[in-house]
């Protein structure tokens, strides 16, 4: 166990974010517009500094020793894009009234808190990546998700936001109760909350039933965050009810936290405990069924949607299912016979998180950029697929962004999403999960239907004759976020190499077998036996 001083040395990014949070909380309450507007630059600055600090750090910590630099830099990067997208989500009415001459009333402003929640949540996400202990992991997960409940609720003044908030919060609490019970049993089955000790203990002997039950309960509970079946129910309602930028936030931040947590938890048992290698059978069966159900359910329900946000919610479920394939496949052997990145399921998940974060954000950004006039004269998001018809004629940039990102989400070569999905396939094959890979392939084919529907609406269809004209939101930052994510999808086709390399390094799981070999060598002074072949 490392000392607290060493631990703090790995936490500078989080500390930076927290300092940023404190500054933002104060700035947002200022009566000066310029100070209030400084909230997001300050948040962005703290994210940039946190990202840079994360890259500096290279201490090996926990069961996935090198996860932190990659994951934190990824969080900071996608966080920056999300920050741009979140511009103007709250306080729009109030700022308009102030612009119209009303006095600033700090009691009705939520800008400070909104950005603070944003940073709190990212802080929690970063803390997840460095978790060495169940207690730490539990708190980090809660810190990640609690602010998102409030963000959803206050993101729009419409009652749908509150409905989304209540569903998200209550079901989230239920999920938290489940994984907390799992953590308790995991502690009970091993006698320790420390993940490294737990891993060593698992590697030494049979896995206790209580520990296995705890592990499975934890994974199922945490899968609420990644919106996997059976914890997926909230997803569509919440994504639809929240404002589009917040939905984009939900599609990345809790999902990333969930995957980090699941990877850390599953790493403790490792991928060589099954009868024929791989995960232990009960855990394998659970994850397998979850993966299959998740990707299938997400895709088939997405087919039926007319709301872009709902469709993206279900597709987000499906993408979680894809990523679970990587978790099932595991990191693969090291040493000879290793396939490296293409055989490493965890690296595939980490890389997919990156590509999914970028490309999914692009589509949400397009929705966030568009508004139409609602029934009672107020502006509402243009979230129906039908609203996007003929987008290429009115907003060509957004239409191109939508097309690129949708193709990428579809996994069409040579888009980034293709390179994200490829290692999931290859690692699945490497792990011998052929049925799973076939289902994954079929699901990718199903996904073509609804992503192409988006593209068709935007590029091919004519706008309906009596359609409300679409208006851009007056936030350049949102358009910038859209453009940047589309550019990211294209640029990282070529630049994917370094990211893949880092994700492969980040996917290293602490090697317990080496310890055992070492112990054996000490114990019985093994002599190599000539094998007659």
């Amino acid at each position, binding site marked *: 166990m490392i000392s607290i001083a060493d631990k703090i040395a790995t936490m500078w990014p989080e500390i930076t974010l927290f300092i940023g949070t404190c500054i933002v909380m104060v700035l947002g309450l200022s009566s000066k517009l310029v100070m209030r507007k400084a909230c997001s630059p300050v948040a962005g600055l703290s994210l940039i500094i946190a990202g840079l600090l994360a890259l500096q750090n290279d201490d090996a910590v926990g069961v996935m020793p090198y996860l932190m630099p990659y994951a934190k830099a990824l969080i900071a990067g996608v966080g920056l894009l999300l920050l741009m997208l979140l511009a103007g989500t709250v306080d729009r009415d109030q700022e308009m009234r102030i612009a119209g001459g009303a006095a600033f009333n700090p009691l009705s402003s939520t800008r400070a808190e909104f950005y603070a929640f944003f940073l709190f949540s990212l802080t929690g996400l970063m803390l997840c990546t460095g978790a060495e202990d169940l207690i730490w992991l539990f708190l980090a997960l809660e810190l990640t998700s*609690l602010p998102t*409940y409030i963000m959803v609720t206050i993101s729009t003044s419409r009652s749908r936001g509150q409905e989304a908030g*209540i569903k998200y919060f*209550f079901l989230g609490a239920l999920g938290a109760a489940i994984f907390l*019970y799992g953590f*308790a049993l995991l502690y009970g089955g091993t006698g320790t909350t420390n993940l490294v000790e737990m891993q060593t203990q698992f590697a030494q002997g049979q896995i206790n039933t209580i520990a296995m039950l705890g592990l499975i309960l934890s994974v199922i509970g945490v899968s609420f965050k990644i919106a996997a079946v059976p914890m997926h129910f909230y997803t569509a309602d919440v994504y639809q009810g929240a404002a589009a930028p917040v939905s984009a936030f939900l599609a990345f931040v809790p999902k990333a936290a969930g995957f980090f947590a699941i990877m850390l938890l599953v790493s403790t048992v490792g991928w060589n405990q099954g009868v024929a290698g791989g995960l232990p059978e009960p855990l394998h069966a659970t994850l397998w069924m979850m993966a299959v159900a998740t990707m299938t359910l997400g895709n088939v329900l997405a087919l039926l949607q007319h709301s872009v946000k709902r469709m993206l919610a279900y597709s987000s479920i499906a993408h979680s299912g894809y990523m679970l394939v990587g978790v099932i496949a595991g990191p693969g052997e090291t040493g000879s016979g290793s396939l490296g990145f293409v055989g490493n399921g965890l690296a595939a998940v980490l890389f997919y998180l990156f590509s999914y974060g970028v490309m999914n954000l692009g589509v949400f950004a397009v929705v966030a950029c568009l508004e139409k006039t609602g029934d009672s004269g107020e502006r509402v998001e243009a979230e129906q697929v039908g609203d996007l018809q003929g987008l290429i004629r009115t907003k060509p940039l957004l239409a191109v962004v939508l097309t690129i990102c949708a193709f990428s989400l579809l996994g069409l070569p040579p888009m980034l999403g293709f390179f994200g999905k490829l290692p999931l396939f290859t690692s699945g094959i490497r792990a011998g999960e052929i049925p799973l890979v076939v289902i994954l392939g079929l699901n990718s084919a199903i996904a073509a239907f609804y992503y192409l529907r988006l593209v068709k609406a935007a590029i091919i269809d004519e706008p309906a004759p009596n359609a409300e004209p679409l208006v851009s939101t007056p936030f350049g930052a949102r358009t910038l976020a859209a453009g940047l994510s589309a550019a990211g999808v294209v640029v990282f086709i070529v630049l994917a190499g370094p990211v893949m390399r880092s994700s492969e390094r980040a996917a290293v799981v602490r090697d317990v077998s080496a310890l055992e070999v070492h112990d054996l060598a000490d114990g019985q002074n093994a002599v190599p036996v000539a094998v007659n072949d």
Partner: protein
Amino acid sequence: MMQTLAQAAYPQAMHDVTLYHYLFVSAGMFVLGLIGFLTRRNMIVMFLCTEMMFQASGLALIAFSRFYLHHTGQAFVIFVLTVAAAEAAMALALVVLLYRKHSSLDGLLFAELRG
């Protein structure tokens, strides 16, 4: 009093059969909380039920902590209490907000988003 209350004189090891009794009660509390969450429509009571599920975890943690004769589980419970308090604060604020709007605490009022 303390010595009579305590199952086996601390720090002697606790038998695993005894541990099982506590775990059974803990599982029972968890399940009761779950049933309450599924059947009660009053949002405050629903949240009370999640608190009960948290308490079930707490009881299991303390029992294991006693079994292993160390105190990590007890420390865990402190954090569970903290998080439960934080969640309760936010949940109650949310519920009050919704009550002011709808004058009802019925969790089934919210079914506009579906499909």
